[in-house]
């Protein structure tokens, strides 16, 4: 029995996507943080060098004989050259005018206090520059003069460095993402392992294995497993109850019927009045009919119950047929009929012995029931065309242009059934058992034309 499961998403995929999503987000943040940090550090160190350069130039400004002179030390500019090949600009100015350097260098407004550097990014000669401006008060002939020194450098070298660092940051982010994804994959895999092993343990069970699940599971799965266990135990109780119910129902129905039948038979032997005898006979017939119907209904319930959870064992089909033939011999003899068993080889088959026996028994019962006195019935166990077959042939006249397929339907009885008791479930049971075993029931007239031949066929693998 396979039932379709309504599948919505997959825990594994969901978990994996969530973990990879988080990893991607974290990688992006990492990339941005590293990039920002690197840019900051680069700018700061550049600023420091600019400041050092400006400071050393400012130091070199002095007043000599009432004139402001600047002797720019070589190191002040060469230290900037160490950083990159960028062009360096400077300007030394007083409020009176530019003393030396690039006069048109964009300079930030005068710093608020002496010694306080003022940094600025601007455009100069179609290039982006970074500049620092410092000022100092000198006393020229007793009057204070503010000397302002600006040093600037283009930023293309710094930009190249930054780009290089950005690539490194990107590699770092991607590497982080790949590593985190691998870990995510591994951890999702390992976190659903208990689920998978539980599934395996349950699906490996036989159809009648209704023990509770006892393997250790993670605490998150314990509610699931405990409800599964309670479901299993409820199922077990209900199965046992229905099996008991069928057996009990059979007992309750059959015992009083047996009493009535036995009493009627005893009475029939004792009384002489022909009218009363006729009614008693009718009564016994009715009892037989109802007990047979009840029996077959209950058998049918039991058969459906067992075919639903078919448990296979090794069945010796030949022996099963021989036993049944032997068991029904007295019944056949009562009608002066002969029941012959034919079967040489041992045919083995995986199946439910009780069900197979019931199926063959029902067919054999029919054959005996519909046969007249002094006729013969054969039961054969044969292997034919890759199939294990049990064939029951009688001399009861066979089927007359009837829909033989219909006879295997519930409560459908043949045209010759009017004078015999029965419920019409016998062939249904036989067919259901055959189909549960992957086989089929074949109903046809015998080759001699004197009777019916009903065959149970089971494919041998």
């Amino acid at each position, binding site marked *: 029995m396979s039932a379709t499961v309504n599948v919505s998403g997959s825990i594994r995929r969901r978990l994996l996507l969530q973990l990879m999503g988080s990893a991607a987000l974290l990688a992006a943040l990492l990339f941005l943080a590293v990039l920002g940090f690197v840019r900051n550090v680069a700018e700061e160190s550049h600023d420091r060098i600019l400041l050092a350069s400006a400071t050393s130039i400012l130091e070199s400004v002095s007043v000599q004989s009432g004139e402001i002179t600047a002797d720019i030390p070589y190191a002040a500019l060469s230290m900037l050259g160490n950083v990159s090949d960028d062009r360096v600009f400077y300007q030394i100015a007083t409020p009176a005018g530019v003393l030396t350097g690039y006069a048109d260098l964009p300079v930030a407004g005068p710093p608020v206090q002496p010694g306080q550097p003022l940094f600025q990014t601007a455009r100069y000669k179609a290039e982006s520059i970074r500049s620092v401006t410092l000022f100092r008060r000198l006393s020229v002939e007793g009057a204070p003069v503010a000397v302002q020194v600006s040093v600037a450098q283009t930023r293309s070298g710094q930009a190249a460095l930054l780009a290089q660092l950005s690539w490194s940051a990107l590699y770092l982010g991607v590497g982080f993402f790949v590593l985190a994804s691998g870990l995510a994959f591994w951890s999702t895999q390992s976190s659903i392992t208990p689920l998978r092993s539980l599934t395996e343990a349950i699906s490996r069970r036989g159809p009648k294995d209704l023990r509770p699940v006892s393997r250790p599971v993670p605490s998150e799965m314990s509610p699931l497993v405990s409800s599964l266990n309670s479901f299993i135990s409820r199922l077990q109780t209900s199965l046992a109850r229905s*099996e008991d119910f*069928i*057996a009990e129902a*059979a*007992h309750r*129905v*059959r*015992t009083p*019927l*047996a*009493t*009535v*039948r*036995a*009493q009627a*038979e*005893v009475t*029939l*032997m*004792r009384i*002489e009045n*022909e009218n009363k*005898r006729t009614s008693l*006979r009718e009564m*016994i*017939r009715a*009892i*037989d009919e109802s*007990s047979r119907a009840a*029996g077959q209904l*209950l*058998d049918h319930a*039991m*058969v459906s119950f*067992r075919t639903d959870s078919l448990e296979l064992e090794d069945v010796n089909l030949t022996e099963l047929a021989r036993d049944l033939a032997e*068991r029904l*011999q*007295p*019944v056949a*003899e*009562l*009608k*002066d009929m002969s029941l012959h068993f034919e079967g040489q080889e041992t045919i083995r088959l995986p199946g439910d*012995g*009780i*069900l197979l*026996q*019931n199926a063959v*028994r029902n067919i054999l019962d029919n054959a005996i*029931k519909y046969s007249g*006195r002094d006729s013969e019935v054969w039961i054969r166990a044969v292997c034919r065309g890759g199939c294990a077959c049990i064939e029951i042939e009688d001399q009861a006249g066979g089927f007359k242009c009837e829909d033989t397929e219909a006879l295997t339907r519930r409560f459908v009885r043949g045209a010759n059934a009017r*004078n*015999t*008791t029965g419920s019409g479930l016998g062939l249904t049971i036989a067919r259901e058992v055959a189909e549960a075993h992957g086989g089929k029931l074949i109903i046809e007239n015998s080759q001699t034309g004197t009777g019916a031949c009903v065959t149970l066929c089971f494919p041998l693998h």
Partner: protein
Amino acid sequence: MRFLLVEDNESLANAIQARLRLDGHAVDHAPDAGTACAFSDTTDYDLILLDIMLPDGDGRSFLKNHRDNRKETPVIVLTARSEVSDRVGMLDLGADDYLTKPFDFSELEARCRAVLRRRGGGSSNLRRFANLLFDPMAGTLSSGGKTISLRNRELRLLEVFLNAPDRIFSKSKLVDRLFSYDEEVSENAIEVYVARLRKHLAGSGAEITTVRGLGYRLSLE
């Protein structure tokens, strides 16, 4: 024959006893497994009829006990449970045969006979009439040392007559004994069997005479 009937349903037990006694059998009735053990320990029975649902335990335990004590008396189980669920267990535990309730008495008789025949036991209560020697268990008849082979219905017909020699049996009574109730048979069918039996009995000193308008009876020639 001597039967032990183990059956807890009082009215069913009464009916079975009455029926078996009508055929000339002796029957002891035990309503539970305990009484059944006591009976089977003290008396030798030809056959035990055992119901499997008993008030003081499963008939199966009686059966197992019976077999464990190496008692040879054959047991036929009467079951009212679904055949599908019980069938195999019965024979595994050592029942010789089983019968599902309600059952036909002729089938019970036939099964008893088959079981006894399988066990190979000769009968202790042979019946004699004229030169006839009839073994009801084995179902054999001989006349003056010569074995006569009878078909089942001829045999049963003879048994009915032998159980009450000189009694007149109407055709309809004989029909009831020979045919199952769901068979449509005319009373003329009896004439066929009576004729066959007469042929077998020729020269045995016993004969079946027709009592016009009443039926048949077995009498000495």
